[in-house]
């Protein structure tokens, strides 16, 4: 396989995952705005921080935060490289580049994703259309994933696509924790206060896991359990442990396919082992925030190493 093709697959699925995660973050932000009276500026700022689009926004809007502007920036602003519209277009351009590696079904799903979102996001989205548009974004990305699962051979092509997905997803979950870690700390506020409850719900909503959490841990969310769920729980498809284990496994398939062990395999195994051997108590003892920041750094390094080892670029 061409190195460029491996890179194209990796980025195609990173961008699709990103578009979906952005839609979820906006949904969580809207929800918290509904349950809160008074200013919600802080919440929108933290939403943008999580999506890593705050700096660009501040430049574009002189630091003036309004709900409508934030949503427009995140959904459709061409100057925001991570806006849903840009992410979906980058995903499709990558798909075009790697067209020969994709099945017709996967190509058509991503092409349709681009066509329908381009038209849904052609103009500023009216408030009443927002829920539908956000749902459409998640749905379109899910169609592509479905086509990938249902029609692609389990070979190197598939593995690079999956590695891209989980690299982006791990980054996203870690960022949510990075921005919101303080609401999970025991010292933050009286445990069980209504504010914390809303914040905790927001975190779970940002990863579409309210139901899953309830199923696994019962009705009353406790901060330590939420952290456990998002960091270490390997049943949870967006947890750090789940994502890193998937990356390790997909890299492992590549290693046996190509019969070559590369530095990225060492990195992935080290990272997977770390999460496997940690307990949530240890993480809180050594510092939740430090743990998350270290993970973000390691995950980014792993991505770069994969890019080098598999020759994505010259």
């Amino acid at each position, binding site marked *: 396989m*061409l190195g460029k093709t491996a890179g194209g697959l990796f980025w195609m699925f990173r961008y699709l995952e990103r578009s979906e995660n952005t839609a979820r973050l906006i949904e969580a932000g809207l929800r918290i705005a509904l349950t809160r009276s008074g200013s919600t500026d802080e919440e929108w700022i933290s939403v943008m921080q999580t999506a890593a689009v705050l700096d660009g926004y501040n430049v574009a809007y002189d630091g003036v935060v309004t709900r409508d502007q934030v949503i427009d920036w995140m959904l459709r602003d061409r100057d925001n490289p991570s806006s849903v519209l840009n992410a979906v*277009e980058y995903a499709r351009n990558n798909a075009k*580049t790697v*067209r020969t590696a994709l099945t017709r079904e996967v*190509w058509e799903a991503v*092409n349709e994703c681009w066509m329908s979102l381009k038209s849904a996001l052609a103009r500023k989205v009216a408030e009443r259309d927002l829920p539908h548009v956000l749902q459409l974004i998640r749905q379109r990305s899910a169609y592509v994933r479905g086509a990938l699962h249902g029609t692609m051979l389990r070979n190197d092509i598939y593995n690079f696509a999956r590695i891209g997905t989980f690299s982006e997803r791990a980054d996203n979950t870690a960022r949510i924790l990075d921005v919101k870690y303080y609401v999970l700390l025991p010292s933050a506020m009286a445990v069980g206060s209504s504010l914390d409850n809303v914040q905790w719900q927001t975190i779970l909503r940002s990863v579409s896991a309210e139901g899953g959490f309830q199923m696994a841990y019962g009705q009353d969310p406790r901060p330590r359990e939420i952290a456990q769920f998002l960091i270490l729980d390997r049943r949870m498809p967006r947890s750090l442990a789940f994502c890193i284990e998937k990356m390790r496994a997909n890299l492992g398939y590549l290693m046996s396919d190509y019969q070559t062990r590369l530095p990225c395999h060492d990195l992935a195994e080290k990272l997977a082992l770390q999460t496997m051997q940690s307990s949530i108590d240890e993480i809180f003892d050594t510092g939740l925030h430090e743990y998350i920041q270290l993970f973000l750094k390691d995950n980014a390094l792993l991505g770069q190493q994969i890019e080098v080892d598999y*020759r994505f670029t010259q």
Partner: protein
Amino acid sequence: MLASKIETMEKPNIFDEMTGVNGDDIRAPYTDFNAWFDGEEPARLRKKQREAEDLFRLTGITFNVYGRAAASERLIPFDIVPRVISGREWARLSRGIEQRVRAINAFLYDIYHRQEIVRAGRLPAEMISKNAAFLPQMMGVSPAGGVYTHIVGIDLVRTGPDEFYVLEDNARTPSGVSYMLENRETMLQMFPELFARNRVLPVSNYPKMLRRSLAACAPAATSDKPTVAVLTPGIYNSAYYEHSFLADKMGVELVEGHDLRVVDGRVAMRTTEGYKAIDVLYRRVDDDYLDPLNFNPDSQLGVPGIMDVYKAGGITIANAPGTGIADDKAIYSYMPDIVEFYTGEKAILQNVPTWRCSEPDSLAYVLDNLSELVVKEVHGSGGYGMLIGPTATKKDIETFRRKLKLRPSNYIAQPTLSLSTVPIFTRSGLAPRHVDLRPFVLVSPDRIDITPGGLTRVALKKGSLVVNSSQGGGTKDTWVLEE
């Protein structure tokens, strides 16, 4: 009954391939189609037409329009009425095409070696030496298997039942074959019943034949399973869809310049497991951009040093660099001589009579008759930079006259032929529109394969003669019936 369905002809004496010169006949190849069409509900057909377009858009069969916004992608309109050619008509055509393609390859070999045709006084020396399409770097280079033009598209027009003319030869990187294939797929999906009633020769094995034909031209030293790749300028190129389509169907890698480099005297592609040598490169990048070390130094699309590897026999480039000298519009006018010179036979296919404006007598004639003639730039393509006298305004003609006087050798002129029409399906039924035909030819060291039919392009505007997709042309499925 026909008259109600078929728009009346705007001019007499135009040959319609379905209804003949007077529009009151149904020619034999169309009998079955006509019977089927008569029994169809127009509303159903209109729905089918829309379905076809949705299908094309979903599949991504689009082309990028130059000079518009970067993301501008358009569909080439597809018309559901097939263009039908009888087996007998095709047999004669394909003999003529094969003869012409053989001559083109012999001509290219000669031009880049001893230039016998010039020595024999059949072609003026300056037609070669002063021609921008002539590549001095190719002098003395003999491509593997003796093949210069692995893929050729011959553009034909028709004026009567047995009158076909070659409008131009495409010996560089002819495009459109993916439309030929997708058009057939679409028709098979939409109207399977039509193919049950008509025995239409298949086209679907083109990619397989292309791969075989490319592999057959691999450099002598390579293994028995040569590595083939398609070189594209990238996703923003107008024909990118076709590049990825062909690579996909052939099961070979689609590469760009930045995927390639010269490693140990071979051109190699960067794979996830290191550099891997390529034996045959089907390039869809122009000569100028192929090698920044040997041609345009600013090119980002090519591979530095590929020409040196090529000359040393380390890679086959298809089509060979420098083939443009054979499809140049000034050379075109010599084609009947060229065919005769190399095959020893009269050309089976006619050329359109052509005035070379570089010759004073011809220029004088052309200037006197501008309103009757089509004047083309010698190096132009895609229907740009031409004057269609009969439909041009007085102002256009005068503007063109000045350009022509300034650089006469830059132009050729041809009479306007009364091009044949084939009906298209419109809101008010069938309506005749002018068409051309581009059959695709594959050349191997030991054989020439012509896919039955080819790409029919159709001018969708009433009376228009311009079939180019960049200027509002559409396409049709092209049938050759089994005899």
